[in-house]
């Protein structure tokens, strides 16, 4: 690991200021992606700004129509939350499948969504539920948030404070884990907002995306077989030693079907 200055600011404002003023600073949330990257000397930030001391970034709040989760809330916390399990069980389930136990004890929602790894789990839920990303300066709709490989709508110093997940009537997440790393090769999140559906996919493309055709088909008729009635374009899908683009397209279908089935059967 290269050397860097370490900061532990005690307010969002202080964090932003540090980030803006430093030459090449980076925020540290749970560190489960950042620290491995630093260890491999794949990044050389001048400053690391640890958000652990910033108040108000942690916690889960359930309102009538939405679940608000602080950016620094750890995956294990979401996975074990009785409130989340009651309001959006699919979200708690998703959190319980991220990485492994040790990673879930450190990794955070905000860190995952800010990083936008193409094979991270949370982006599927953010897209699939049409969540709103609350930053220090604005609200960003999920559909406007994920831009490309590790690229989001966040400005350089912008900081995620919390994410608001609308509570669907029902939802389900199905993931096909990479047998080696356990990241998602493909993960599909399907949510039913009273006859209107959203389908969020992670792992398949450069960043999480929706399948509009499937959403429309499901709104007409809720049936796993609807997956067979749509085209899955996979020209721009990821292709690596674990899964070709074509195979990923198949996995999108299979995971979508299974998520729809799970959503129906509860």
């Amino acid at each position: 690991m290269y050397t860097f200055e370490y900061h532990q600011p005690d307010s969002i404002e202080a964090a932003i200021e540090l980030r803006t003023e430093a030459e090449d600073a980076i925020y540290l949330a749970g560190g489960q992606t950042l620290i491995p990257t630093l260890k491999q000397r794949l990044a050389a930030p001048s400053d690391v700004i640890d958000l652990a001391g910033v108040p108000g970034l942690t916690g889960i709040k359930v309102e009538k129509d939405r679940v608000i989760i602080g950016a620094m809330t750890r995956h294990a916390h979401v996975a074990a939350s009785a409130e989340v399990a009651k309001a959006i069980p699919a979200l708690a389930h998703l959190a319980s499948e991220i990485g492994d136990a040790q990673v879930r004890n450190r990794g955070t929602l905000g860190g995952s969504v800010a990083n936008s790894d193409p094979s991270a789990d949370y982006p599927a839920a953010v897209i699939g539920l049409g969540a709103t990303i609350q930053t220090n300066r604005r609200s960003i709709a999920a559909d406007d948030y994920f831009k490309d490989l590790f690229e989001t709508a966040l400005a350089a110093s912008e900081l995620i404070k919390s994410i608001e997940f609308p509570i669907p009537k029902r939802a389900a997440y199905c993931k096909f884990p990479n047998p080696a790393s356990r990241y998602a090769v493909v993960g599909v999140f399907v949510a039913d907002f009273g006859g209107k559906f959203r389908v969020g996919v992670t792992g398949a493309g450069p960043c999480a995306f929706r399948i509009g055709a499937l959403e429309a088909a499901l709104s007409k008729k809720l049936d796993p077989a609807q997956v067979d009635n749509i085209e899955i374009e996979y020209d721009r899908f990821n292709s690596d030693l674990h899964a070709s683009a074509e195979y990923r397209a198949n996995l999108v279908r299979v995971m979508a079907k299974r998520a729809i089935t799970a959503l129906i059967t509860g």
Partner: protein
Amino acid sequence: MKVSLTVNGRDRVVDVAANTLLVDLIRSKLGLTGTHVGCDTSQCGACTVHLDGRSVKSCTVLAVQADGAEVTTIEGIGTTDALHPMQAAFRECHALQCGFCTPGMIMSAIDLVANAKALDEQSVRKGLEGNLCRCTGYHNIVKAVLLVAESMPERT
């Protein structure tokens, strides 16, 4: 930088560089070599310790992040004369061979048993996803963890 933390019940103040990993603090600064490093991509789990009571990979936590925290390593859970039940179960079930992954595996298993609602073979296997063992084929590790889980009082 000065880091104050409690390690195995003992208060310690250690001077570290900002880029020091918690595992290096534990191994090099404190000489607690029971915590091992088996990879450089945060996958193998050999370095697992408890940070404020939960299992973490100490190779993926900066030492400075542990400031003010309570750290427990394999050396802190039991002694040869008074083994932790998980240590005893590992020995009883022959859940270790070369012993290199064992400290991390035991620390993960303790967290798993303490925090899981109910454990069966499948959930133990899933729960140990973050720890690699090359010797045992996991068969006896799973047996040992289930042995401890079964001896714990029912949780709700």
